[in-house]
């Protein structure tokens, strides 16, 4: 359980980091908190030839609200989000989601951007960015580009980033108070990766759902947005009956994988169980 050898560089500035990523070194990998990468390296499932440690890039550790966007720096740690004073339905969703990321000693090290770049389809942050149609900013010496979450996640451990690009920040929309957000996930033990996770964001006006977003993890090789559930919710009267019919629609729509943690039938059952819980529990925002 000792990793393969690698070279290690720790740039002091963002520019230096981008230059390193562009220097043509084969199998170069960015390490941020390392909480997903290092276990894989210890198992030798990942064998990068070089690690670029972005731990000194403190400009990436900032959460900043500008107009109707909250910009979360790539190196913001999970524990920072768990304790964020941010108000409203977004703040609530961030805190609840962060509390479900691993355990405290993981949350003190692991980072928001690292989790997205790792692209695990059941990860809370991948789901949350997909749910809220976040905009993900990546930079290279070639310049900066913004990738919509819908395009960012390509597959398990695969994103739309090029090898020379570094994820720098993520723009999340500030959610007005008429949004109800929530998360429900099912894991065998506290802190484990969810077998299925459901995040929801619905806008309710006079009891009627006027906008709905549902993201589901553990049912696809990337964070899944359930068009069927969103359609079922839209225009309906918000309540348990509506949530249950949306859950049925989502369960019919998904085509989940089967593995030792649960087969496809069971994962569909979990979608049925969790979707109403995600939003019923979050009803108070």
């Amino acid at each position, binding site marked *: *359980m*000792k*990793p*393969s*050898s*690698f*070279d*290690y560089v*720790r740039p002091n500035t963002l520019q230096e980091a981008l230059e390193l990523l562009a220097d043509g070194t084969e199998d170069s990998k960015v*390490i941020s908190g*390392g*909480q997903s990468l*290092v*276990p894989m*390296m*210890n*198992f030798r499932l990942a064998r990068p030839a070089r*690690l670029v*440690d972005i*731990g000194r890039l403190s400009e990436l550790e900032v959460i900043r609200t500008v107009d109707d966007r909250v910009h979360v720096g790539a190196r913001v740690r999970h*524990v920072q989000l768990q304790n964020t004073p941010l108000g409203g339905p977004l703040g609530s969703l961030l805190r609840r989601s962060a509390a479900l990321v691993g*355990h*405290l*000693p*993981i949350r*003190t*090290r692991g980072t928001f951007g690292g989790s997205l770049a790792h692209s695990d389809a059941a990860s809370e942050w991948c789901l949350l960015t997909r749910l809220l149609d976040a905009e993900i900013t990546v930079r290279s010496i070639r310049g900066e580009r913004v990738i919509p979450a819908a395009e960012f996640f390509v597959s398990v451990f695969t994103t739309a980033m090029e090898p020379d690009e570094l994820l720098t920040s993520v723009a999340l929309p500030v959610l007005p108070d008429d949004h109800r957000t929530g998360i429900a996930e099912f894991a065998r*033990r*506290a*802190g484990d990766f969810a077998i299925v996770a459901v995040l929801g964001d619905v806008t309710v006006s006079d009891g009627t759902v006027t906008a709905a977003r549902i993201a589901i993890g553990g049912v696809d090789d990337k964070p899944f947005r359930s068009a069927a559930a969103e359609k079922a919710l839209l225009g309906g009267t918000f309540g348990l009956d509506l949530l249950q019919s949306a859950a049925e629609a989502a369960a019919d729509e998904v085509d989940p994988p089967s593995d030792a943690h649960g087969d496809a039938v069971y994962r569909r059952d979990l979608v049925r169980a969790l979707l109403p819980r995600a939003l019923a529990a979050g009803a108070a925002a």
Partner: protein
Amino acid sequence: MTATVPLRLLVNGERHDISVEPRRTLADALREDCQLTGTHLGCEHGVCGACTVLLDGQPARACLIFAVQCEGVSIRTVEGLSADDENLHPVQQAFWDHHGLQCGFCTPGFLMLAAGTLEEDPERSDEELRDILSSNLCRCTGYQNILAATRAAAAQMRP
């Protein structure tokens, strides 16, 4: 073999000038290079928590961080928990008083987890304590006395 790099670690207030390969985890560097073998390795993939240490006061898995990443970080291990060889830290004392350990292999990790979080905030609720203590695995105690000991330490540490 990749060349080793010189490194200065600050552990329990003492400087350790060592030379390690970049792939050396902090846990291995503590155990092998600093000869601080109180930090144990139970899984080396971040689940069991036996290797939990404090980095700048916060609990972290020493198997999931490389020693080279820890320059300039204040590292605290179980050997640095009590102020001296005569007295025990309140968490150590409580684990002794409440039979919070059996084989003792997971114990350093639990001590660091409990000490780190209680030093930050001894007023934590019972629910928070349960959540925090569920970060690590113990195979002997069934957790009952680990929880009891941590509650007792918290009471002791409150102002």
